[in-house]
């Protein structure tokens, strides 16, 4: 449904997207992961026709966006990173305007507005001026706008950024719901979000794709190493050494006031750690597992890629 071939985008001398290839099949939900400035937004802007690529091609269904942009754009619903709202319009007037621009006739516009208001739970805000909406509702109106014409392809740029946790959960559910009969590409820099919603992720770093795979395949790669953060009352040097000797532990380090323990995903050393500490007569103050930050994962993936070359 979406096919991208050797896509490159330069802004002056800066290369924002560097020769990337990927495709999203019909009905797939694909996560587009990367730290800020990785090139996610630029890629999405090219897919939606907002930017023209410096080199390479984008295909939506059978339309090349360079030559058949209008036909391609008809198939896409797009939620940009900065939700495009007219602050002095009401929700209803705004959705009407977008629907009309999307080519819906008056009757269809009315029925679709009812549908998306229902879907995005906007009843109470339908006659409110957009400028007065909270961030979460702005995001929802943005999403409503993106699906008003019932598009086959949805491009969502950071759909859950800046909204409160309850709304995040609702939005994710909504996206999953929408994904049942649509092709979705969504960008995020929150790793758990991608693994929750998407079937497949594409990881981009500094304009290049560093990994793309199904979530279950990637998670073994990404979760190859787990970390624990341990706070112990006891002589730091000895504690570090003792932790390092426990079965399955790769590495134990000390960064005041915490000890960090890295271990492989197959083992569960928590019990042994506690046992060892009790034996030595030290007091365990806290023990928690910490997820690898996305930044670390990128470093790991890019490092692996370099080594592979």
């Amino acid at each position, binding site marked *: 449904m979406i096919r991208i071939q050797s896509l490159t985008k330069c802004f002056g001398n800066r290369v924002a997207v560097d020769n990337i290839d990927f495709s999203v099949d019909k009905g797939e939900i694909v996560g587009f992961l990367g730290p800020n400035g990785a090139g996610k937004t630029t890629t999405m802007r090219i897919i939606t026709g907002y930017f023209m690529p410096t080199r390479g091609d984008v295909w939506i269904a059978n339309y090349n966006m360079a030559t058949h942009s*209008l036909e391609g754009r008809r198939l896409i619903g797009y939620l940009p990173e*900065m939700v495009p*709202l007219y602050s002095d319009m009401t929700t209803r007037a705004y959705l009407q305007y977008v629907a009309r621009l999307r080519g819906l006739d008056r009757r269809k516009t009315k029925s679709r507005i009812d549908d998306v208001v229902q879907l995005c739970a906007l009843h109470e805000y339908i006659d409110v001026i957009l400028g007065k909406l909270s961030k979460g509702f702005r995001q929802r109106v943005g999403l409503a706008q993106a699906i008003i014409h019932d598009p086959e392809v949805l491009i969502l740029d950071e759909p859950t950024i800046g909204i409160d946790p309850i709304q995040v959960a609702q939005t994710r559910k909504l996206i999953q719901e929408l994904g049942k009969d649509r092709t979705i590409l969504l960008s995020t820099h929150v790793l758990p979000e991608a693994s929750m919603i998407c079937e497949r992720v594409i990881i981009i770093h500094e304009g290049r794709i560093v990994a793309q795979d199904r979530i279950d395949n990637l998670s073994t790669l990404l979760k190859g190493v787990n970390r624990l953060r341990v706070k112990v009352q006891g002589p730091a040097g000895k504690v570090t050494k003792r932790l390092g000797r426990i079965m399955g532990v790769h590495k134990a380090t000390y960064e005041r006031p915490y000890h960090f323990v890295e271990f492989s995903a197959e083992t569960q050393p928590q019990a042994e750690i506690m046992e060892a500490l009790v034996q030595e007569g030290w007091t365990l103050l806290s023990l928690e597992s910490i997820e690898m930050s996305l930044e670390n994962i990128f470093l790991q993936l890019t490092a692996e890629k370099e080594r592979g070359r």
Partner: protein
Amino acid sequence: MKNIGIVAFKELKIYLTSPMAYVVTAIFLALSGTFFITYLAGTNYTDTSIRGFLDVGQILILLLAALLTMRLVAEEKKLGTWELLLTVPVRDAEIILGKFFASVAVLGVMLILTFYYSLLLLIFGDPDLGPIGTSYLGLFLLGCASLAVGIFASSLTSDQIVSAVVTCGILFGLWLIGVAGSITPGAFGDILSYISLSYYFPDFARGILDTRGIVYYISIAVIFLYLAIQSTETDRWH
């Protein structure tokens, strides 16, 4: 065509619901009305023409065009809605033309509101209607050309003030080269006059329908609308 209508209709609604168009129209009517009447008083009510209105009206229209058009594209860029407009299945030309026609409609209403000057003359005197008709045509064409320049300037920036200043710069520049043309001897002076906004208006005011003037104003409008569309297109390439 339909898309031009959709964009124009939305812009008109914004004109109607925001203070800018009302303030601009009020100032236009107040100033042009004052000059209309002081001119008449100056001739002791012997010259029943709208010359007073025209003298100031032609300059005011340049300023008002800058104020009416400054937000048309610049604000969309600031709000992020430009990204929406450029990713819906609507041509860049349709967006620009929709915005242009909305501003032309406001200009039209503004001019229609000044018809009562002529009505007063008809009631209390015996004005020559021919020159009044051609004057309005001239004002309207001059206005259309100015609005096109304004939209072009607005498409260059996300800052409304910059847009207004650039519009005034271009319009007054095109106006003043006419003054330069009239004092420069020879063919060069003629060329300066021919390309200036101010050269053609006096004929319209005198009641002369010169095709050169009509073609000139329409050409300016077409050229700047074309440039606005090109600038939108270029944005996609950066």
